[in-house]
């Protein structure tokens, strides 16, 4: 029973990684960029909640909605300002990567300047009494995290597979040149992808704030890195892969904390990454890119 509770706890934490991993994976899928600033979007989302909920003392639903919208717009703006010209002129991927790291450092410092570097504490946002299922206790944040992440992924899958914007995204990701010649505005499509990815990170941020009571300007660093590991673990570019990677990572963390040592958590997480990639370099659900000759 203890074991099962730990696994479920892990799934709860993993849900946050999964939501953030989706953003890495979608952006990578469409422009082959590892957007290292994506982790800091979580921080931006968390601070937006803090500003609206605590500083302005407005209702919770407004804080959640505001955070999602603000991050979505921020994602679009970052793409427009920092990446668009590089993408249009087909700059080497390494330039994009360096720009992404630059954006990340910029955001961290901007928020330190605005809010100071000491942590802010968040009030509990959504809470209800823990549920008991035959000896397994489910906390409110675990239940909320898992259900929100599952709904988000289902929605995203539906959008990518069934809606015209999803088809535009898939076409752009496969062959942007041909997509343009089929009448698709690839720039808008890419901007939209950044927006959706960032909005999902904001949802992750809300769940994070609900799970951990503290936020600080550098919180996006390790969290973003772990979500990135989750995306690679699941197979970067794959939506179900990002989710799977996130859950696995969360469970691994939780089990290490419970049965080995909480000092070793990060070592285990990154150790898993190394082992999985040795065995399956494209990640668990990644596409095998074997060329037909």
């Amino acid at each position, binding site marked *: 029973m203890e074991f099962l509770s730990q696994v479920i706890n892990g799934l709860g934490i993993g849900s946050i990684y999964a939501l953030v991993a989706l953003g890495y994976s979608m952006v990578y899928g469409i422009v082959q960029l590892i957007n290292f600033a994506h982790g800091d979007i979580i921080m931006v989302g968390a601070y937006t909640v803090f500003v609206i909920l605590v500083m302005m003392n407005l209702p919770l639903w407004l804080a959640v909605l505001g955070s999602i919208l603000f991050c979505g717009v921020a994602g679009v703006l970052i793409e427009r300002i920092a990446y668009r010209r590089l993408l249009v002129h087909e700059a080497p991927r390494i330039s994009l990567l360096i720009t992404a790291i630059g954006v990340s450092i910029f955001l961290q410092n901007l928020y330190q300047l605005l809010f100071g570097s000491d942590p802010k504490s968040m009030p509990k946002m959504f809470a209800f009494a823990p549920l008991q299922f035959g000896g397994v206790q489910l906390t409110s944040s675990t239940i909320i995290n898992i259900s929100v992440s599952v709904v988000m992924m289902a929605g995203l899958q539906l959008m990518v597979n*069934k*809606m*015209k914007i999803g*088809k*535009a995204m898939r076409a752009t990701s*496969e062959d942007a040149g041909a997509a343009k*010649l*089929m*009448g*698709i505005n690839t720039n808008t499509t890419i901007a939209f992808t950044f927006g959706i990815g960032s909005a999902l990170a904001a949802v992750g941020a809300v769940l994070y704030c609900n799970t951990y009571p503290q936020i600080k300007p550098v919180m996006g660093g390790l969290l973003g890195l772990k979500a990135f590991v989750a995306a690679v673990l699941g197979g970067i570019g794959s939506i179900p892969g990002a989710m799977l990677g996130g859950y696995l990572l969360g469970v691994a963390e939780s089990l290490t904390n419970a049965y080995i040592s909480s000092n070793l958590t990060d070592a285990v997480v990154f150790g898993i990454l190394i082992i999985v990639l040795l065995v399956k370099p494209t990640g668990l659900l990644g596409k095998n890119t074997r060329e037909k000759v």
Partner: protein
Amino acid sequence: MPVLETKNLGIAFGGLQALQDVHFSIEKGEIFGLIGPNGAGKTTVFNLLTNVYVPTEGVISLDGVNIVGKKTYQITQNGIARTFQNIRLFKDISVIDNVKIAMNYQMKYSVLSGIFRLPSYWKEEKAVTERAYELLKVFHLEEHADDLAKNLPYGQQRKLEIARALAANPKVLLLDEPAAGMNPTETKELMETIALIRDKFKVAVLLIEHDMNFVMGICEHIVVLDYGRIIAEGSAEEVRSNPKVIAAYLGGE
């Protein structure tokens, strides 16, 4: 009025004048051939027409409107669609979705009505799916609608490229070596299909092709390029007997 017309069209890559003074005009419903030896600049013409390259001089008018400087996707939306010399289908996407992607811009429903599955979403998705199936039927691809594009045999991939281009609802269809790699039977079938497309979809067809039987058999008007300049034009008969064309293809004085 011609549906597509170029005047004084040219492009230089650095010091290399790849195309110079290219002028032709295509009438509605005409099948128009663009031929010439390798490296003559034929595909470059296609790239200029769709603004993949920006011309350094000249005018391209589509239905009387200059389209130079418009973005590639806008030009497609305005009525020029193309296929590629080396097939560029969306390989990991199903056959039917390849076709529907080219219809994307013709669908107007908003993201919100997509998320909430409002009636406008269903109506448009249904209409587009039906049209996509009709197009696939023209090319006998309807049985493969749900296969991934990369799993089709070569000849059918070529057909799917044409179907996808037609889905963009063009006034002018550009075909870059549509018969490349096809056997004589397939080539003959393709000629019939192109004639059928012209009649059924009322499009003008501009095609690049090396197979002379194909070009001479189907094109009503032919332009011959060599070293980036037009060296001859006219009907198949006129072009075939033009000494400059013979020289360009066979070498000589």
